[in-house]
């Protein structure tokens, strides 16, 4: 197995803020590796360093054996990147955006044109190749950016939040492309996301990153196993009484969060009636109760003590405030 990416104690500070804090990992060739974390966790900063856009404060990394500090051009030739924010020329057509990229990477004309056609077909934009990008939807733009990132046949592809802001259908569509790519072209992919479902579906391994630190790193299956059983969520107006009512050895973990109590236990289905009985005895009223297999959401909660959605809400609020301020 060839090591495609090797990262050792990589760190980046912005003034006092440690955006990326001594992270370490290794990715083997052909793997899809996910960086999962809330807003501001340091995902984009990590990719910026690996792609030579940003100098690390300390630490080292190699992409396909090439040092990111010593041979920036070498790294740039080996990677393709889809940035978090859009980076197309809206005044050019899809084909022209591809052509510009191909020329920048000095791909000879014949190969270039052949690959452009092939890739535009792959992302189903061939019929729209002569349309100005301004007329494209968000999903089409994203697909075009992915096609562009592949044009120079990079060994490693960086995808920064590839499906952010897209509707579920388009997202599903893109996931299929990414999966096929990794399989067919044996490309190593490192993607960042704060969608649990995306990480779960696509990634061979996931690093959960929060406040610049990697707090867990494993396959999605093993991360979920680490929860140690099933998850029971109880909604109730008096959550405070639940923890005393349910202090029994077969419940491994009990957390209260947002008017919900989340329990972890093995064979939850069998214990459900016991839980309900005990709560009834203690006169705790139950609004709803549900059982599910652990998801990455539960993993995230157990490692960080918060849900990734908390952060999403605060981000939406921040946006709303921003718009409100703009109006005044």
């Amino acid at each position, binding site marked *: 197995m060839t090591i495609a990416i090797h990262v050792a104690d990589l760190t980046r500070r912005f003034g006092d803020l440690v955006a990326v804090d001594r992270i370490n990992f290794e990715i083997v060739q052909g793997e899809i590796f996910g960086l999962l974390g809330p807003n501001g966790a340091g995902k984009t900063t990590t990719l910026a360093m690996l792609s030579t856009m940003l100098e690390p404060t300390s630490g080292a990394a190699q992409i396909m054996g090439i040092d990111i500090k010593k041979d920036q051009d070498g790294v740039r030739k080996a990677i393709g990147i889809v*940035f978090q924010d*859009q980076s*197309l*020329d809206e005044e*050019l057509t899809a084909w022209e955006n591809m052509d510009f990229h191909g020329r920048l990477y000095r791909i000879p004309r014949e190969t270039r044109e052949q690959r452009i056609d092939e890739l535009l077909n792959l992302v189903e934009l061939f019929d729209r190749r002569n349309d*100005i990008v301004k007329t494209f939807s968000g999903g089409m733009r994203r697909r075009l950016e992915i096609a562009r990132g592949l044009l120079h046949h990079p060994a490693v592809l960086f995808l920064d939040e590839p499906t952010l802001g897209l509707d579920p259908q388009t997202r599903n569509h893109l996931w299929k492309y990414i999966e096929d790519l990794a399989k067919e072209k044996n490309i190593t992919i490192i993607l960042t996301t704060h969608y649990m479902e995306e990480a779960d579906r696509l990634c061979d391994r996931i690093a959960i990153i929060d406040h610049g630190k990697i707090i867990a790193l494993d396959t999605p299956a093993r991360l979920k196993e680490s929860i140690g059983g099933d998850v029971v969520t109880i909604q109730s107006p008096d959550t405070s009484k639940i923890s005393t009512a349910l202090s029994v050895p077969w419940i491994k973990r009990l957390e209260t969060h947002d008017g919900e109590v989340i329990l972890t236990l093995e064979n939850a289905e069998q214990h459900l009636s016991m839980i309900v009985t005990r709560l009834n005895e203690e006169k705790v009223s139950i609004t709803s109760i549900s059982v599910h297999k652990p998801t990455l959401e539960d993993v995230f909660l157990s490692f960080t003590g918060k849900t990734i959605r908390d952060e999403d809400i605060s981000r939406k609020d921040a946006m709303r405030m921003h718009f409100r301020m703009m109006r005044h």
Partner: protein
Amino acid sequence: MDIVYTIWLRSMKRYVRSKSRIVGSIAMPLFLLVFLGFGLNSVVSATSLGQQYVMFLVPGMVAMSVLFTSVFSGIQIIWDKQFGFLKETLIAPVTRLEIMFGQTVGGATTAVIQGIILMVLAVLMGLRIENPAGFFVALGFMILVGIAFTAFGIAIASRMEDMTGFQLIMNFVVFPLFGLSGALFPISSLPGWLEPVTLLDPLTYGVEGIRYGLTGVSQINPIISAAVIAGFAVAMTVIGAYLFRKISV
């Protein structure tokens, strides 16, 4: 060279598609030419000029369209920054110098085309170029002005985060440079104390050079004009390249 060509090609494609920009940056000098030129033609005494005022004004307006188009082309890097496209260029395995040269050549080309369009309109309005070789002299000066001020725009854009500072630069740098350059009136008609200031304005030499080419008359020796504006173009390119090297996205 192929990278410079690639960036140039993109500028050209964008230019050809931006009809409103083409018309917009021609309109101002054209209106000035019509209103000032014909309006003041009989008021301004021709004796000090040795020619009609409107004909005196044509080279100034050609220089104006080259000046504004090229500054604007350079400044456009800020749009690329804001629309994210600059990242795509900077992440490629090419040097910043190649990118900067490509932008400069692209901006200068659009600026010169704008100048030529204005020149053609002036010919339709009655300008007669005495000597066909003069056209090429004027063209040479337009290219130098275009390069110098595109590089100037790139230098500014490299240090600016967004377009908010753009108006400031226009009002306090570009307009004064234009006003002092003798595009609108002969340098010799300014009060004595202002004359040295106009001679410090690099654009003065560009305007004088274009005027020499188009009308055969100028107040500054064309050789000196060529030397000064060429030197300025080189200096601006070096400064622009230096600042662009440090640009961050």
